[in-house]
């Protein structure tokens, strides 16, 4: 069986500038933190980030100049930490394009990609300015004459997902909420898994229902203990509230954010290996 293990540096190096990158997890939880930091270190540019609800990942990639567009339904740190200030600055200055979605239209775009169809109908959206702003078109149902909005397929060039356990063939076990990770793994052209630990795949055979990501969809597997940091990774670790508080405090100001990135991320200080 193919051994798909590689280093984080090599896995991220394969992502071209301008790629459409889907990131797993949701807000403060089980995001691929180590991979996002490596993207910053490798100074990727012009990325489109796809996620239903982003937080530190989207904010950092905006601050570091890696992102050109954000396709998401929500970008913020939730109650504890408030708004995504670097994302705000980048969008308000025009440096980054906010491709606003309802979370359900991100899912619809991924579903169309997964099913190999050009568009996916989605319920609702009526009365919202979003379809006009995003160019989402309503079609007439040829069977019932009802009208329904359709969202174009959204195919990520790469999905980066952090899981608790993976085997060398890319089978990935997610403990707890799967968020949109499984949809992203199916929709993307390439899939990078970072995993808290690599295990023998034989250990998955007793309960394959627990394996969220089938290995045959995965291209690269990276062992990354603590690789969700500063996101939570249940049951191993909570989100790093002190670190996120420090980030939000500097994210508002470009120079402060850059200094933070240089010290904490590029230099690697304060970023667990």
């Amino acid at each position: 069986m193919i051994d798909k293990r590689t280093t984080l540096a090599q896995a991220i190096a394969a992502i071209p500038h301008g790629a459409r990158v889907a990131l797993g997890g949701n807000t403060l939880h089980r995001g691929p933190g180590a991979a996002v930091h490596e993207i910053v270190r490798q100074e990727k540019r012009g990325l489109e980030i796809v996620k239903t609800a982003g937080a530190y990942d989207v904010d950092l990639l905006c601050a570091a100049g890696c992102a050109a567009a954000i396709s998401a339904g929500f970008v913020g740190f939730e109650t504890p930490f408030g708004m995504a200030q670097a994302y705000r600055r980048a969008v308000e200055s025009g440096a980054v394009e906010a491709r606003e979605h309802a979370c359900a239209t991100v899912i619809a775009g991924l579903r169309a990609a997964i099913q190999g169809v050009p568009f996916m109908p989605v319920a609702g959206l009526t009365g919202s300015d979003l379809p006009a702003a995003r160019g989402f078109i309503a079609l007439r149902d040829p069977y019932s004459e009802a009208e329904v909005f359709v969202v174009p397929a959204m195919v990520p060039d790469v999905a980066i997902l952090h899981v608790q356990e993976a085997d060398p063939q890319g089978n990935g076990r997610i403990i707890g909420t799967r968020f949109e990770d499984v949809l992203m793994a199916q929709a993307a052209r390439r899939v990078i898994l970072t995993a808290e630990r690599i295990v023998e795949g034989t250990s998955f055979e007793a309960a394959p229902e627990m394996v969220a990501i089938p290995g045959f969809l995965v291209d690269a597997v990276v062992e990354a203990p603590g690789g969700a940091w500063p996101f939570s990774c249940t049951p191993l670790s909570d989100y790093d509230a002190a670190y996120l508080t420090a980030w939000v405090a500097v994210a508002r100001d470009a120079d402060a954010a850059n200094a933070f990135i240089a010290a904490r991320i590029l230099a690697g200080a304060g970023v667990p290996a």
Partner: protein
Amino acid sequence: MVDIAPWDMMAVAMARLLHSGETVFHGVASPLPMVAALLAKRLHAPDLVYLNITGATDPTPEYLPISTVDPALLHGTRSLVTLADLFDLSGRGRLDVAFLSGVQIDGAGRINLSAIGPYGRPSVRLPGGAGSAMLMPTARRVILWRTKHDRRTFVEQLDFVTAAGNVDRVVTPLGLFVRRDGRLEVESLHPGVSPEAFREATGFPVAVGPETPVTPPPNEEEMAALRSVDPDGVARSEFG
């Protein structure tokens, strides 16, 4: 009566709006709806089905997290659904209640979570509506809550309509709106809130006066249940 904490009043008022047997959903950044759903289950709606963005179905959290996407909200769930499953549930008309909020809310109960100023080049880029543009028209009842009640929140004109739809009630620190014939009407004022104060804080015209009912304050049973559901006062976190 004015010594009722607004987070207690809001949590209780929101819980009272939920019925046993209803499917009730909240998403990210929703401490008050989380508390309200669990409180209603404890009080008068034991068969309420509490659903949240973690994909938990009727979880029994050991403690309440501040992040409402927190894995703590999975504790005790017996099945695991996805956010996509929950949107689908609403899409096919089987979600009874969705809790949503807005940075701006207009007199029709429409919300703006997208941008202040011109949408293409906003003066303030907001977080976005998350699921609201899909949920508001499809959920059977939408309950809006907002911990700020001022003229910057309750506006005559939204800068952008992020979502519109089946709004039933709006709960604020000052009182409750009910939506009738597509317009928000004042249903009740919380204890100690004057009609003038409410009118002053609302950016669109509202009929409010001495005849406007007062929201019944939380009774002992409600307060006791609230303390046991939310001993750490997570609901308060929304007030910063």
